[in-house]
């Protein structure tokens, strides 16, 4: 059968007007990276729920101390008020000095979250900058790799134990101690990523345009690492909180009159047999924070992978 176009009635088809500008638009698909990431992320109810957990804990941790005048270190001289189990007035009970565990828990959450955030920001910040330079500047690769090998082989306990002795235990000492080893892994990770994109053609293109190093890193390299780095940061927060618990266990944590989740866990553990709730609250919060950050971080990283954007 042969098509005979000539037999078609005139008027059935009209020649389409050709508009060059409109033609350009056809090649273009509206798409926003961050919006898609966000959409993919919120599609999962678990991650949204856990994000909510983080938000609520942050809010409680940062707002409670502002709006409540209960001093988490207020000692009750009345021994009958010591070690009260949860009851009205003391929703989480009191500890061995009659201090209100509800107040202590939220103050502790604040301290620990703050610790986690600062460490995450420092670790990721330092790791990102060092890693980007290390990966991007070829001349730095050799010395940095050697430095990495050295730092990576200094046993972490040596640093963690030495620093409190040299600097006194304290909030910033813990931060320095944990950061002094924490950024290395991130820097290494960033470096490997950077090396894999360093010689990509768009970077060559920028170099042809005479783009200086700082802009190469800030505009060409780091934006590609943002999602991974956010995940690293999200994982560093619970890791720091866990490390603080551990340091408290070996007696090198925060000063014990500082209210933190690590101190609460360690104090609670001492009394666990008698007053299990004193251990239960801080542990539950540490666990919830860790799980939330861990899963939210992972989901975010999944969501930020364009392959998962539908």
């Amino acid at each position: 059968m042969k098509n005979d176009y000539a037999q078609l009635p005139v008027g059935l088809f009209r020649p389409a007007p050709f508009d060059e500008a409109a033609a350009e638009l056809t090649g273009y698909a509206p798409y926003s990276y961050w919006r898609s990431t966000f959409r993919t992320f919120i599609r999962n109810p678990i991650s949204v729920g856990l994000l909510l957990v983080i938000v609520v804990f942050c809010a409680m941790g940062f707002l409670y101390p502002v709006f409540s005048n209960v001093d988490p270190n207020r000692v009750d001289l009345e021994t009958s008020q010591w070690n009260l189990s949860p009851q009205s007035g003391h929703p989480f009970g009191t500890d061995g000095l009659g201090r209100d565990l509800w107040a202590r828990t939220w103050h502790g959450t604040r301290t620990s979250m703050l610790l986690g955030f600062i460490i995450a920001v420092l670790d990721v910040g330092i790791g990102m900058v060092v890693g980007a330079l290390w990966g991007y500047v070829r001349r730095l690769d050799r010395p940095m790799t050697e430095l990495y090998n050295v730092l990576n082989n200094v046993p972490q306990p040596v640093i963690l134990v030495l620093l409190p002795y040299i600097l006194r235990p304290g909030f910033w000492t813990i931060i320095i101690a944990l950061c002094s080893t924490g950024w290395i892994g991130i820097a290494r990770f960033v470096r490997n990523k950077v090396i894999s994109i360093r010689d990509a053609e768009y970077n060559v293109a920028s170099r042809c345009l005479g783009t200086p190093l700082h802009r190469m890193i800030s505009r060409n390299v780091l934006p590609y690492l943002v999602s991974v780095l956010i995940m690293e940061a999200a994982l560093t927060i619970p890791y720091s909180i866990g490390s603080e618990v551990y340091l408290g266990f070996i007696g090198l944590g925060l000063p014990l009159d500082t209210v933190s989740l690590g101190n609460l866990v360690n104090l609670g553990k001492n009394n666990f047999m008698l007053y299990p709730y004193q251990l239960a609250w801080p542990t539950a919060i540490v666990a919830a924070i860790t799980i939330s950050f861990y899963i939210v971080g992972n989901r975010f990283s999944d969501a930020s992978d364009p392959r998962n954007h539908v």
Partner: protein
Amino acid sequence: MGSYILKRLGQSLVTVVIVVVSVFMLLRLMPNSGYFTREDYVNMDQAARTAYLRNLGVLDNPFVQLAHFAGGLMKGDLGRSISLYPRSPVSSIIAEKAPYSLCFGLASIIISMSLGLGLGVLMARHKDGFADWMGTLYVTVVRAIPSLIWLFFIQLWISGLMGWPMIFYLDRPVSWILPTISFSLAGLGWYAIWLRRFMVDEENRDYVKFATSKGLPRTRVMRGHILRNAMVVLVQYFPQQILLTIAGSLLIESLYNIPGMGGLLVSAVRQQDNPIVQTIVLLYAVLGVLGVFLGDLLMAFVDPRIKLADCSGKGA
């Protein structure tokens, strides 16, 4: 290849030397007052304290001390402990303690590797299924709750439930079970979660889609392609993990009273027992570097794409 290995070993030696020297210098930042207790200060006058410190050798110029340490090392003499176990040869202290950590470490690596890799395969295979969900839950819980807490509960409850001893006895094998389990749990999760991750990554690769589309059975795709390639990534970490089991675990060993290496480094640093710290740092650095090196060798061995000489510039 031979010259490459030599070169790598040479570099590693430099790394180890720098590590040891920097820790050595760092240790000297700790105040000498740490060698004396409250009681000592009451008992000893300045002359006695100085004499004591001089005998420990900590008053010398750090470089002299370093040279001394290096000299002893050349002769195979690691020195004697100065404050933790005064006068005991460091070598014999480590020789006494390391076997415990090694045995538990190796046993737990075998368990956590076999179970963990099995779990990882299961999780990857039934991605988003029940096994995956349970595995993720397990790993999340193990990571989320401070290990301090769940290790403590395992000791308390399981030993009570089973009527097992709460601490480790060399002559009662039943007391070996809980510490081994405790050692394995975290590692198990680690292996499972990474193997799963790598396998899932591999699964999205084109060659896997191709293999599946040409009709290869799923088990064969899993075993022959995905698992193999995922393991290649994982395998480079094995040697280091195995070697560094010698470090033990402070937490588990102190819970079960295992006289291993776990707390040795921390106590030695706290008591400023420099000879012990230096030796351990040296030991760990050597094993760490060696582990990475063996990992690269192993990787070159299992992965035909990798040629040893090219490794130097590449990231792990």
